[in-house]
């Protein structure tokens, strides 16, 4: 055995140095996402606090008139909340059952050939830009579907229903894909066992797959809610700009997100109360979607059934 020095070679030292550099730079990079989140919260927080030093919280949350950009300004956020609620409800009523149905079919019934066709179609649907969907909602869905078939009241050019239906179509692929992931995670042994006991495929779906994949499905539903609430462009183009306190989806409404877009286009003077309403409403929107996202993560963690 040659007597080689046990001291680390030059190359090894260099490697170690590179290792150190890489490790520290990567950990810095990892901080970027944290910095960004802090920046989001900070950018929303300060103007919001300023806003609430001028406008009473009571008025903000209880008044039914939203007219922040007029004189005299009124700051009741409830119309935006009901508007958001209307669009979200329609969207979720469409997307959750259809998404679940599509997921069940793809997971339990479909032949490989059909899957090869349907999955890309859903991916294409998911990739359609919201401005395209908004255009579709305004020019096709509202005149051809909503105006012709909605029975309650008169339906004008803009309606929560047309926006809601199209938002539903926009989030359907997300719902379907997340639900299908949850269903695929259910081991085949459960399916086979049920079938061996004489269950029909439907009974396997409703009795076995659904309960087993429940956590994933619930997480998917919560995420669907979250996305429907945050959708801006479709509501901006098809729901109108009248912040009306109404529960009839045939009416035009303004949602929290579409108000932000609307005010942003109008470009409020920096520092004015109108400018600060963008941040106040933005904070509300951020908090709601943040809570929903945390809820969905929690649900998955809590109810996940281990299949090892």
């Amino acid at each position, binding site marked *: 055995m040659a007597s080689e020095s046990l001291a680390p070679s030059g190359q090894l030292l260099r*490697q170690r140095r590179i290792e150190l550099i890489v490790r520290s730079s*990567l950990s810095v990079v990892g901080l970027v996402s*944290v910095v*960004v989140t802090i920046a989001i919260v900070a950018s929303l927080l300060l103007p919001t606090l300023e806003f609430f030093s001028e406008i009473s919280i009571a008025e903000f949350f209880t008044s039914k008139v939203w007219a922040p950009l007029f004189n005299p300004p009124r700051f009741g956020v409830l119309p935006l909340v009901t508007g958001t609620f209307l669009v979200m409800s329609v969207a979720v009523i469409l997307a959750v059952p259809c998404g679940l149905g599509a997921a069940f079919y793809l997971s339990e019934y479909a032949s490989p050939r059909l899957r090869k066709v349907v999955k890309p179609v859903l991916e294409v649907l998911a990739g359609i830009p919201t401005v*395209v969907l908004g255009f579709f909602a305004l020019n096709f869905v509202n005149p051809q579907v909503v105006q012709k078939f909605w029975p309650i009241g008169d339906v004008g050019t803009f309606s929560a229903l047309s926006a809601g239906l199209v938002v539903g179509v926009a989030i359907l692929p997300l719902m379907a894909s997340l639900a299908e992931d949850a269903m695929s995670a259910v081991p085949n042994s459960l399916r086979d066992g049920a079938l061996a006991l*004489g269950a029909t495929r439907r009974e396997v779906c409703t009795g076995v797959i659904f309960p087993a994949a429940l956590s994933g499905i619930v997480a998917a539903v919560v995420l669907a809610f979250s996305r429907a609430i945050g959708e*801006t462009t479709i509501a901006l183009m098809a729901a109108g700009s009248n912040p009306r306190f109404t529960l009839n989806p045939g009416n035009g409404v303004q949602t929290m*997100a579409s108000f932000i877009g609307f005010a942003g286009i109008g470009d409020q003077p920096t520092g004015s109360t109108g400018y600060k309403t963008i*941040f106040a409403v933005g904070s509300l929107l951020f908090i709601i979607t943040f809570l929903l996202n945390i809820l969905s*993560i929690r649900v998955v963690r809590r109810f996940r059934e281990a299949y090892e």
Partner: protein
Amino acid sequence: MNLEAISPAAPPLGHKIASSRLWRDRIFRSILLLSIAVALLTLFTLLIDTFLEGRPRLNGALLENMPSGRPARAGLQSAIFGSLWLVGITSLVSLPLGVGTAIFLEEYAPKNSRYIRLIELNIQNMAGVPSVVFGILGLAFIARGPLSWGFTVRTGAMVLTILVLPLVIIASREAIRAVPPSIRDGSLALGATQWQTIWRQVLPAAVPGIATGSILSASRALGESAPLLLLGALSFVTFNPTSLDSGYTVLPLLIFKYASDAKAEFHVVAAAAIIVLLVVLLAMNATAILVRNRFQKRL
């Protein structure tokens, strides 16, 4: 032996299932098919309706001309170049940042640290934040406020980078995670350092997944409209960007502008622009799927 005695609910061998069960099964199956039909039908209606409306204006002039107040002459050039600039810069910046973060989280970070879990939670939340909130962030901090970069390409690219970063991180993490531990162990056993292992073994193996993720996030950046609405990209711009400090517009916002115009002729241009955008997005998604399928078999 009479099966009926053993389990009355189960159909006796050789007999048909009770017809009510069978019917419920059929109805269920139809409902499921209906759900898929809703998605398919909507997509096809949208595509066909848009195609029919935009077809008259689909010609070379559409791509060559600049936007114009005169519908007959209105084109997309400045928006196409604006989108190219924005998506290009966004990808260039978000890729190293995103992949770097993913490498850090997967290979270097201690798995059980609360701090790391916080970062992961953070990233997942950011992926779910409504895109318009990123516009607010950009307006407060980047266009105005401390950075004050104004309504320029630089601002738009930075906001889009922040928006797609979580997507790149999540996709890259999955790709890195999918690399079998045996490859890492083998490399380390042969005396490579951790970084050598990552750089020479893990990353190359994860490239297809990372590529797919970056193509998909680029297509997401291409289609975004809400944040840029707050960042001045809705202006009437008839020039291509020449620097990071140029004003700009992007294809989705030009579509928004043309679609909001009351003149019906502009709606035709909007529809034609939508076709262009969709074709590009479709090509990008198809590439991503191809990459994913082609390289998935190797491992």
